[in-house]
């Protein structure tokens, strides 16, 4: 069994929407800066829809792929749609995950939900990404 799905491999080798928006409408961060995977999203939201989105990430290959697929799926989606994502949805976006990799699906779901919540509540995460 291959370690990663072709989608995961595609996204961690050719990540989409990498980087950081200047003056984003919302900024969401999730992760453990000391030893775990970290994802930061910046997005512009227009009429409840994600109009532009970027990520920065530091972590295992699967978590980088997760950040990439999440931005791709979020682009053009409504905040309501994103809020409905569960771990399974993120895993499906990734084309499946080995059991010992499932935690990255939760990470993707969490950072996407946080983007929605932060936008709704008008707050921003400013936890900096740390290369640890």
């Amino acid at each position, binding site marked *: 069994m*291959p*370690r*990663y799905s*072709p989608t995961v*491999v*595609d996204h*961690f*080798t*050719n*990540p989409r929407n*990498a*980087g*950081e928006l200047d003056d984003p409408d919302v900024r969401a961060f999730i992760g453990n800066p*000391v*030893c775990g995977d970290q994802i930061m999203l910046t997005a512009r939201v227009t009429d409840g829809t994600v109009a532009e989105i970027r*990520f*920065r*990430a*530091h*972590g*295992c*290959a699967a978590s*980088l792929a997760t*950040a990439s697929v999440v931005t791709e799926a979020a682009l053009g989606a409504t905040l309501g749609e994103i809020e409905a994502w569960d771990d399974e949805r993120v895993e499906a976006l990734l084309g499946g995950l080995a059991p*010992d990799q499932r935690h990255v699906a939760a990470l993707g779901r969490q950072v996407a939900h946080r983007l929605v919540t932060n936008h709704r509540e008008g707050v921003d995460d400013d936890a*900096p*990404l*740390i*290369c*640890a």
Partner: protein
Amino acid sequence: MTHPSSVPSPSQPTVGGPGIYLDHAATSPVCREAVDAVLGGMSITGNPSSRHEAGDEAKDALESSRTQMAALLDCAADDVVFTGGGSEADALAVCGTVLAADGHRPVHVITSAIEHSAVLESCAMAHELGAEITILRPDGRGWIDPEDVRRALRPNTVLVSVMHANNETGVIQPISDIAAVVHEAGALLHTDAVQTAGKISLAGLGADLVSVSAHKFYGPKGVGALKVAPGVRLSPLIRGGSQERGLRAGTENVPGVLGMAAAATAALHHLDDPAHQAHRHTVRAHLLKGLEEAGDIAVNGEGAPCLPETLNVSFTGVRGDTLVDVLAVHGICVSAGSACHAGSDEPSHVLTAMGIPAQRARSAVRFSPGRTTTVDAVTTAAARTVDAIGKLRALGPAGAPQPSHA
């Protein structure tokens, strides 16, 4: 398969054989001589313990292999004990010595924090069996000071176990100096030579117990040997038949042992070949030069004597495991930490023991070229690594280091 470096197809995982294999410290391909010997060994039916021609044929094959291994281990044929690999050799050396010590006083064992887990866990088992254990720390280069060994010795020290070269950094330890210190105190010295056997000479090491594992020197997996010097008392872990002088029961792995012996003989030829010796160093130099293009790198173990085949580099801003996965997609096989702990999230115990911060330890990757690795291969691998590093750093925090040529 190797992707031509100009046309990567990163969206497809590589299939088939490895492209550029730079993970010889994890395991090496089986050389032609060893393959032939294993095949020959499988055509020998008898059990070496049997009293008939079929048995004698097996026994004779085993004994010539023992002589070949003795040449590698620089000892008498009778001192060679065949085992089911390097880990078993380590377990037999450490636990076997402790179990054989007379049980009236607690015994003391000294080891180092950079040992392979087979030694460290065997020491932990020895501790469960009642032994006291001292674990020495290396210096910042990953080198064990013989004077630290001297200071740690106690009247009840029965064994010191310090590896010949470390599997993550390649740093070579001063075994013969340590042997002098240990023997002066009347204790035994074990050295795990799994990483050095076949790469550098084991002659004159002075250790009483020496572990090797065939698959690290182009022999088959699942077979190893322990040199047990005359007079050393060991208690076996696997008991029953009187094979291997009673130190390792069980029908001997005839094909595996023959394969190991053939690989040992081939390795000794390479050791004597000046062209091959020059090549090892050339390959390392090119690899390191190529990797330096990534900028902001640190060689772990720098400044200490080391095996040219093992190059451990930390790339600031990149996780080692991630880089390994990205390079794997490009058909380049390297490792982060040792293979047996690949997949664990803990930073390497070896690098941590050297005082390297967790962040730098997590960004370490081990490149281990081998006998057939060409300069071209390491040049290509380094270029691809630099490329991957650039991309990965670009995903991370703003202002991360960029390749020096960018």
